[in-house]
């Protein structure tokens, strides 16, 4: 019984963690990133999200 509970909690945490990653608002963290190239795109090929974009100077 106790083992089942542990497995269920682990699964729940994994799903929560995955969901947290998929719904991340990357723009909140832009200040922590320095990209020196004048044009850039960083793209999540799994979710189809544009993570970061620099359109040119």
């Amino acid at each position: 019984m106790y083992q089942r509970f542990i497995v269920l909690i682990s699964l729940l945490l994994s799903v929560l963690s995955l969901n947290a990653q998929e719904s991340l608002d990357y723009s909140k963290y832009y200040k922590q990133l320095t990209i020196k190239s004048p044009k850039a795109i960083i793209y999540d090929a799994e979710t189809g999200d544009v993570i970061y974009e620099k359109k040119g100077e």
Partner: protein
Amino acid sequence: MKKKANEKSSIASLTKLMTAMVIIDSNLDLNETVTITKDDFDRIKGTTSRLWLGSELTRKQLLTIALIASDNRAASAIANSYPGGKLAFVKAMNVKAKQLDMFDTVFTDPTGLDKNNISTAFDLVKMAQASNQYPLIRELTTSSYYEAFIKNKNKTLNYNNTNLLFRQGLWDIDVSKTGYIQEAGKCLLMQTKVLDRPIIMVFLKSYGKYTRTADAKRAKQWLENIHIQANLAMH
């Protein structure tokens, strides 16, 4: 994609990923021998190559050298060996671009030396995704080193991957291509894995020998850090 990076610019040798897709799609024999001719010499930028006039290489050797070392003469020879020659090849490149919904992209030559090979960061993401579907492109663009034996010259040529990140061996890269002409600046396109997620990075108009790879390192570190921060906040 939720946002569009649709400002067009020259893409230099990133073009060679399309060259690779077109020649693979053609189903021409990759083991067939192709000869380097004067037509393969660069008359646009005057770049040099170690592939001498008359050198005989297989299409696969040429493709490898074009992708790993970004050799222009190799890419040109691939295109010239296509039925209908270079003109037909470039036409096929543009047809392929349309098939991939790369509507803001135009190819004018198979090497990327022509500044009129233009695209957008948004379209280049599509090209990276398409290239990643080709096992041979994944294999060749992620090889750090290649030794080409030129049979009819009895010579061996050694090539290193132009993406400096391969020399460190710390990256899990699926597809990669670099590019440079003056009009395009230094370019880097790659699909890599960050925390097991497939991430495409495109850097254009970069300058300095190390800027684009340093950008890639900073982006990877940044992504790792914010996922750690997000997970800590969750638990």
